[in-house]
């Protein structure tokens, strides 16, 4: 596989993970990522992760607004989504469940900061929000996640 093909594959996987942070659902994330990629292809690029993130984000907002309803999933679907990744690796079920308790925009902020390692200023630019707002939102999201994880652990001990 050429360097270019590998870079494209990696870009698509990163786009998928970002979509997953928004949807918290593999199938929806794949659909969202594919829609966004085809939209980018029709425009002729650019094939950069920052641009992909922007397109995925806008499409997610559009879909969310259009549907304006929450989708309910069966427990079986939820379990399947939380136990195995596409590559067959076992994922962090506890964290997966905790992330599911967060709002999409909270997961998005955590993803951009922790996975893509964007600075607060870059996240502010990508999400079109003031830097201070992003900073406090990221802090709140982490705090919320930590509380959820702690309470889950306590419940397991009990």
């Amino acid at each position, binding site marked *: 596989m*050429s360097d*270019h*093909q590998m870079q*494209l*594959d990696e870009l*698509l*996987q990163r786009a*998928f*993970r970002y979509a*997953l*942070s928004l949807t918290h659902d*593999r199938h929806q*994330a*794949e659909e969202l*990522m*594919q829609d966004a*990629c*085809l939209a980018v*292809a*029709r425009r*002729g*690029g650019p*094939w950069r992760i920052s641009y992909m993130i922007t397109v995925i984000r806008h499409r997610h907002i559009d879909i969310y607004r259009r549907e304006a309803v929450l989708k309910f999933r069966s427990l079986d679907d939820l379990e399947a989504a939380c136990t195995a*990744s*596409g*590559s067959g*690796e*076992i*994922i*962090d079920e506890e*964290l*997966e469940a905790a*992330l599911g308790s967060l709002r999409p925009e909270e997961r998005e902020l*955590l*993803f951009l*900061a*922790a*996975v893509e390692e964007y600075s607060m200023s870059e996240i502010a630019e990508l999400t079109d929000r003031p830097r201070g707002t992003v900073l406090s939102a990221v802090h709140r999201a*982490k705090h919320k*996640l*930590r509380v959820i*994880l702690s309470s889950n652990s306590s419940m397991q001990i009990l």
Partner: protein
Amino acid sequence: MNREYDILDERIKAHYEAQTTDANAIDDLKARIEAESPQMIGTARARRRWLRFSAAAALLLTGAVLIVYVTGALRDRVPTIASRVASEIALNHNKQLPPEFLVTEFSDLCAAMSKLGFTPVRPQRFTDAQYELVGARYCSIGGSNAALIQLRDDAGRVLTLYEFREEKSFESIHEADLDVNGVRVILWREADLIMGLAGSPS
């Protein structure tokens, strides 16, 4: 707290990085991207084509430069007739063979060296006072008869003058001023003869 959040960040990162979409789905998506925007995937092909073309062009250019360089180097290394004659003259000059005919006038050389097949002459570029004739002997240059004429300049230095007839094999010899292993050899044409003066002529 910061340490705790750092650990949480690492956990989130590891969690998401462990998740990949199916390779077949990626391949299908790439096929659809190509269908929507052939230039996207085509860019890689175009880039490869361009790289191949650039590599071939660079190879051709390198080959051409190499050929020119090697040809030039070979040409410089292949001795010309003039340089071969100059080398032979310098070699014989260094031998300092004793003259067979001890004459002091060029006019006497004509009678003394009757087997040359040509008449040795005093070069017009010499002034009377410049060189003193010491003697002469038969010699050959490139298989042709030649007169090896020994001279002495005002400073007492011995020089060797060669005179031989113009022939087809020497037609490329014109004016030349060459250095052969420290011996200066001046070649020129005069009176249907080729002259070669070896030594350190002023």
